[in-house]
């Protein structure tokens, strides 16, 4: 997978940096009084010299722990924040200029932030968005029909927003954000707080939306299931710096320090602690975690020393790998 060049990119980021100046003081009355006279400021590098390009139609998972710089980056890409340094273009626009044409071509969905009027049916707010984004009535009707089907909205658009459940509201919110069919979507935790069914529904919808309209999607999520289902490429950010930019399989290969050995065993108790860390044990089965470089040796020993019916070697779950990446805190 070769990275897109600047001229063909939907999103181009080069040397992007954001430094916040935040007040800092010790607790206590004396420090409070002192801060009245001399305010001590501290610089926080939320995003530190990052660069990447996203090709049109790509779906990228933007991963990192809380405070890594994900939301700050999304805000700079959508024009809500001025970068301290660096270059950003989205569809050829400089986001911080907040040109109308740019705002018509993007959307940013941020968690539970509400853009719908609370006390009236969402359908009324949709009509308002039709006027705001100057959507042709025919296209508007088609888009709403498609969304209602894909997101299984049913008659939700006729209920006052305040009467919708969290999952229903999020689906309607996403629908409202996409009525103008933006070619670029920035999604900040779109499935946060939703139950498993609602998460799956939104994931399927985003995949379908991407297929249908060829839109570019940059998605942050704490749920690896979102990332695995939607993104071939992931960008991992930590302390404002990019730790990894590549495909999901590569991330596992590069950062996982262990392999998982799944065993089917003949009946009877066997002590497996000498072969690796036993993470799961059941009747006739066991799962071991072994350091990557010792996998072959451990496998050979298991096959020769105990009665194994079946043995498979797997990569550990992606969540675990990501945790390891953040724990390592190392540069690429």
């Amino acid at each position, binding site marked *: 997978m070769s990275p897109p060049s600047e001229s063909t990119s939907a999103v181009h980021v080069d040397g992007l940096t954001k430094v*916040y100046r935040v007040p800092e003081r010790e607790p206590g009355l004396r420090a409070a009084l002192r801060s009245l006279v001399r305010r001590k400021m501290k610089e926080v590098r939320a995003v530190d010299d990052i660069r990447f390009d996203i090709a049109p139609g790509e779906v990228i998972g933007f991963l990192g722990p809380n405070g890594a710089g994900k939301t*700050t980056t999304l*805000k700079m890409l*959508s*024009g*809500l*924040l*001025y970068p301290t340094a660096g270059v950003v273009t989205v569809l050829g626009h400089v986001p*911080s200029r*907040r040109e*109308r*044409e740019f*705002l*018509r071509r*993007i*959307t*940013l969905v*941020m968690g539970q*932030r*509400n*853009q719908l*009027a*609370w*006390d*009236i049916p969402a359908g*009324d*707010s949709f*009509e*308002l968005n*039709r*006027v*705001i*984004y*100057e959507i042709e009535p025919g296209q508007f009707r088609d888009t709403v029909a498609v969304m209602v089907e894909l997101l299984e909205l049913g008659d939700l658009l006729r209920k006052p927003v305040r009467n919708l459940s969290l999952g229903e509201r999020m689906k309607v919110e996403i629908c409202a954000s996409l009525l103008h069919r933006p070619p670029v979507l920035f999604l900040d935790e779109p499935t946060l707080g939703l139950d498993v069914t609602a998460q799956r529904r939104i994931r399927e919808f985003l995949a379908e939306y991407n297929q249908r309209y060829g839109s570019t999607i940059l998605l942050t999520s704490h749920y690896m299931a979102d990332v695995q289902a939607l993104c071939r490429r992931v960008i991992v950010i930590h302390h404002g710096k990019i730790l990894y930019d590549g495909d999901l399989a590569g991330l596992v290969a590069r950062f996982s320090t262990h392999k998982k050995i799944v065993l089917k065993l003949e009946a009877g108790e066997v002590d497996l602690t000498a072969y690796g860390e036993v993470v799961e044990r059941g009747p006739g089965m066991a799962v071991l975690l072994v350091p990557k470089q010792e996998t072959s040796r451990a496998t050979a020993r298991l096959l020769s020393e105990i009665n194994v019916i079946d043995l498979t070697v797997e990569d550990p779950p992606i969540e675990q790998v990501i945790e390891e990446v953040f724990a390592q805190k190392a540069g690429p």
Partner: protein
Amino acid sequence: MRSTLAYYAAQMRVAFADSMQYRAAIALQLLGKFGEPIVYLVVWSTVARQSGGEVAGFTADTFAGYFIVWTLVRQMTVAWSPYWMETRIRKGEYSPLLLRPVHPFHFDTANLMAGKWVELFTLVPTMAVLVLVFRPSVQLQVWCVLAFVPALLMGFFLRHVWMYSMSLTAFWTTRVTALFQMFFTVEFFLSGRIAPISLLPEWGQQWARSLPFVWMFGFPLELLLGRFSPAEALAGFAHQLGWLAFGGIVFVVVWRAAIRRYSAVGG
């Protein structure tokens, strides 16, 4: 321009529908607001009667007319509140508005204007009751009624633009209340709110005419009551336009700085 008007129509429809959900609350709030003009009306009518029936050209009956129209002008010139801006910034509710290809000022203006239509449902009948109770002496002239409409609209926009510009200071300090208390205090005396401007001493009237407050409130009010000649009315419109243009420039300058500030610190 056409798209902006279409936006106003659509936003007002949504805001109107939204406000209708709270019509009982709006009616109660409005009723609460009638206390203030009734107090002024009773006080000034008493003063007029004890001063030989007239104060600065106002009798008890014309005072009644003044303070009944006062309720309409007061409600129609209610403008953007600093407290809303403070809350919006503190809760990070500004970002969704900034992501729309429409200026947030239009969003707030359309919402305010829609709210006024809802308020008229309770305002007009209540004014009718006040007319029956206080029997005002008002001789409405056609040209004054016609001129009142744009004067009232300008009064609203004038107040809205200035208050909005001031509320933008919330981007620097999330406590803008002190600034507004100062605004309201000066406005209280120099806009025609506590009493008609002609009741002020000459120097006070000069101050009032050289500041924007009277053009937001007292001018449309007294215009409807027929207290101005056509020439004075035209001069009043010129003052309104001048202050509106000045307010517009201040708004643009403050907005640019405010949005830069917001973008620097995050939403």
